[in-house]
C-alpha cells in the first residue's frame, strides 16, 4: 500500500504540471504574433489583443488546474485500493481521466501555435485546421474508450443489468444529438461533390465522416453510456458512508463527461479558423470548461473522502 506522503506527492506533481502548462500558454499568448485581422476588426492594439485573449482564457486555465488536481486525487485513492477487486477498474478510470485532463491544455497550446504559423504562412492554414481538428479529437477518443472499458468492468463486477428504459433514453439522447451534429456539420459542405476539399474543414466529406464524425459520435456514445453505468454502480454499492463519497465522485465524473461532450460538440459544429474568435463560441467554450472544472472538483472531493476511508 502506498504511503500518505507518496500519494500526496501526486497532487503536488499534478499541480506543478498544470501550472507549467498554463505558464507555457500565457508565455505563447505574449510571445506569438497577434492576429492583425482580429485586431483591426475589434479596434485593438497588440497589448489589448493579448490582454483580452489572456482574460478570456483565464477560466480555461482554472479548469486545467482543477482537472489535474481531480485526476491526481483519484490516482491517490487508486494507489490505496489497487489490490482490491474494484481497484483495478478505478485504476483504468483514473487513466481515462488523466487523458481527459490532458485533453484540455494540449490541444489549446497546439491550436495557439498552429494559428500563429497559419497567420505567418498563409499556405499552412489548411494543414493547421486539419491538425487542430484531429488533435482535439484524439484525446477524448482515447479517454472515453478507457473510461468506457472501466465502467463496463465495474458494472460486470457488481453484476448489474442495464435498465431497459434508461438505456432507451440514452439511445434517443445520443441519436438526437448525433443527427443534429451531422446536420450542423454538413451545412458547411458542398453536397454536389464528395471529394471536394473546398470547405472549412479542408477534408473531403467521406474522409470527414470516416475520421472525424464517426469517431466523435463513438466517443459521445461511449461517454454517455459510461456516465450511466458508473451512476448505476454507485447506486448499487453497499455502505452509507462509502456510497456518499462514491456518489460525489460519480457526480463529478458525469459532469466532466457531459461538459467534455458539450465542449467537443461546440468546437465540432463551428469550423476552426486561423485566429481566436471573440464571439459566443468562446463564451460557451469558457462556460463548459468551467463546468468541467467544477466536475473535477467534485471528483476530487469524492476521491478524497474515499481515500480517508482507506486511511483512517
Amino acid at each position, binding site marked *: 500500500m502506498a504511503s500518505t506522503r507518496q500519494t500526496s506527492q501526486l497532487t503536488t506533481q499534478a499541480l506543478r504540471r498544470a501550472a507549467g502548462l498554463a505558464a507555457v500558454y500565457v508565455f505563447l499568448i505574449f510571445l506569438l504574433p497577434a492576429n492583425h485581422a482580429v485586431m483591426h476588426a475589434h479596434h485593438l492594439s497588440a497589448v489589448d489583443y493579448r490582454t483580452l485573449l489572456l482574460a478570456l482564457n483565464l477560466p480555461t486555465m482554472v479548469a486545467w488546474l482543477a482537472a489535474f488536481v481531480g485526476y491526481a486525487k483519484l490516482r491517490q485513492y487508486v494507489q490505496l*485500493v489497487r489490490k482490491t477487486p474494484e481497484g483495478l477498474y478505478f485504476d483504468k478510470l483514473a487513466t481515462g481521466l488523466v487523458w481527459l485532463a490532458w485533453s484540455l491544455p494540449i490541444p489549446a497550446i497546439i491550436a495557439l501555435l498552429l494559428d500563429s504559423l497559419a497567420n505567418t504562412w498563409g499556405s499552412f492554414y489548411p494543414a493547421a485546421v486539419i491538425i487542430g481538428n484531429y488533435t482535439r479529437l484524439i484525446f477524448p477518443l482515447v479517454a472515453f474508450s478507457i473510461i468506457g472499458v472501466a465502467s463496463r468492468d465495474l458494472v460486470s463486477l457488481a453484476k448489474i443489468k442495464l435498465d431497459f428504459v434508461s438505456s432507451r433514453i440514452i439511445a434517443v439522447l445520443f441519436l438526437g444529438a448525433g443527427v443534429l451534429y451531422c446536420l450542423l456539420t454538413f451545412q458547411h459542405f458542398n453536397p454536389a461533390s464528395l471529394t471536394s476539399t473546398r470547405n472549412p474543414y479542408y477534408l473531403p466529406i467521406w474522409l470527414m465522416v470516416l475520421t472525424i464524425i464517426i469517431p466523435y459520435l463513438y466517443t459521445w456514445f461511449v461517454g454517455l453510456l459510461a456516465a450511466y453505468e458508473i451512476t448505476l454502480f454507485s447506486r448499487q454499492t*453497499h*455502505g452509507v*458512508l*462509502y456510497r456518499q463519497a462514491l456518489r460525489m465522485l460519480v457526480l463529478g465524473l458525469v459532469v466532466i463527461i457531459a461538459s467534455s461532450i458539450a465542449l467537443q460538440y461546440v468546437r465540432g459544429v463551428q469550423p476552426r479558423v486561423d485566429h481566436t474568435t471573440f464571439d459566443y463560441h468562446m463564451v460557451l467554450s469558457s462556460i463548459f470548461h468551467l463546468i468541467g472544472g467544477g466536475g473535477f472538483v467534485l471528483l476530487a472531493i469524492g476521491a478524497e473522502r474515499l481515500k480517508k476511508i482507506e486511511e*483512517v
Partner: protein
Amino acid sequence: MPALPNYSLYEGVVRITRVYLGPAAGRFIDRQVENHLHKAPAELTPADLMVLIDWLKISVSHLTEDSEIVEEYVSELHKLADEQAKPKRGKGKS
C-alpha cells in the same frame, strides 16, 4: 490464559461495518485491529471487543459529522458484544 481467536466475531464486526463502509469494511477493520489492538485480525477475541468499539467510534467520527450514523453503528456493535457475552454466561451457570 488468553482468550481463543473468534473468527465469527471478526466476521460479525465486518458485517456490521459493511452497512456503513461497503467494500472498504474489511480493510477498515483490519487496520483498526492491527493499529490499535496490535494484533492480527484473525486473533480478535470477545475480550478485545469493547476496546475495539471505542476505537471504531473514534475512527468513524473522522469520516462523518453525522452523529446519528456514528451512534447507530456503535449501537449495532454493542448488540454484537452482548450476543458474544450471553453464551459465556450460560456456560458459566451450568
